[in-house]
């Protein structure tokens, strides 16, 4: 079955160890799925040759001049996808924690449901995830609910599928990891239809070493709180 033109955006910072494998696996999954797709790696100012490895693996690479954070890298990738006229776009992590088949499944779910934003939730079935990670992610989802009134089982998931409307309209202001929650808030303000689907998360020693510390949650909460308050002042 042939589908529309899609792209997979992978924001990456110093991921030369894993990015090649992630891009190749995603390419293979796309070629077997019937989706006509492109893989875009947004190198957020890496100094370890991430761009070269990604390019060699077959990805289109956009290199940030300055290291700006995961939120800014994702925004750059989605802006590029919008300019190139993709009908669907996905974002996934560069450390290999997401399975390419889950991305393809996301495209299929999105095509069938017609939602604007689809979140791949690792917490609908959290097998394989450490208790500390589960607690940290559930805590941030609770804070996202308290601050913005958004009920999401995994507000911090990096695997997300965007419709054409989301690509055109959805924008956020934060540039760090807090953009995950802010994006849901902006989607709510725009009255976009947001849904979730279950995905698996693969935690290797490498992805564990690259993953976010639970302490980073403190920074995320502080930034979200400040953004929520400042929004009132204009």
């Amino acid at each position: 079955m042939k589908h529309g033109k899609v792209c997979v955006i992978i924001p990456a910072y110093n991921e030369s160890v894993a990015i090649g494998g992630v891009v190749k696996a995603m390419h293979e999954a796309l070629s077997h799925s019937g989706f006509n797709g492109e893989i875009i790696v947004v190198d957020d100012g890496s100094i370890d040759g991430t761009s070269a490895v990604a390019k060699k693996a077959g990805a289109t690479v956009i290199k940030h001049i300055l290291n700006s954070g995961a939120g800014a890298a994702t925004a750059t990738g989605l802006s590029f996808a919008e300019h190139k006229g993709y009908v669907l776009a996905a974002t996934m992590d560069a450390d290999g924690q997401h399975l390419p088949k889950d991305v393809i499944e996301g495209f299929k779910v999105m095509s069938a449901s017609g939602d604007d934003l689809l979140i791949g939730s690792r917490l609908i079935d959290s097998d394989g995830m450490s208790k500390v990670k589960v607690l940290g992610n559930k805590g941030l989802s609770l804070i996202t609910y308290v601050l913005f009134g958004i009920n999401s089982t995994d507000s911090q998931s990096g695997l997300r599928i965007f419709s054409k409307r989301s690509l055109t309209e959805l924008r956020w202001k934060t540039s760090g990891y807090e953009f995950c929650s802010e994006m849901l808030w902006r989607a709510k303000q725009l009255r976009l239809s947001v849904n979730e689907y279950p995905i698996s998360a693969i935690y290797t020693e490498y992805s564990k070493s690259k993953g976010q510390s639970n302490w980073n949650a403190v920074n995320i909460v502080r930034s979200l709180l400040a953004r929520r308050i400042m929004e009132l002042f204009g």
Partner: protein
Amino acid sequence: MSRYLLLVLLNLPFILTGMVSAITRYKLNKSSRRRLTFQFGLWLVILLGLSLAQPLYEWLYSHELTQTEPLSLFDVIQITAIVAILFIANRTRLKLDEAERRLNDLHQELSIRLSSK
């Protein structure tokens, strides 16, 4: 001239500019209706607070709810300075927000164009 009147007159330019700026930003689609309500409400509360300072003080004093001295010239200067700082901080934050947004857009566009070459 009454010190209470002086207080209102000194602060009126900040308050009116704040209100006009909030309305202008809303009319130019630079802010939402909710933000307009908050900003306008904030300056309105300050204006009412300063305008009603004298009757409020007299009422509290006559009912023996306060023993403080009436407004001094130093109080007038201090309150005006606080309102001025609020006004400046508000404008600076808006400008900083705008500059940050433009810088992010520029960085994004530049990164895409340079990578396309």
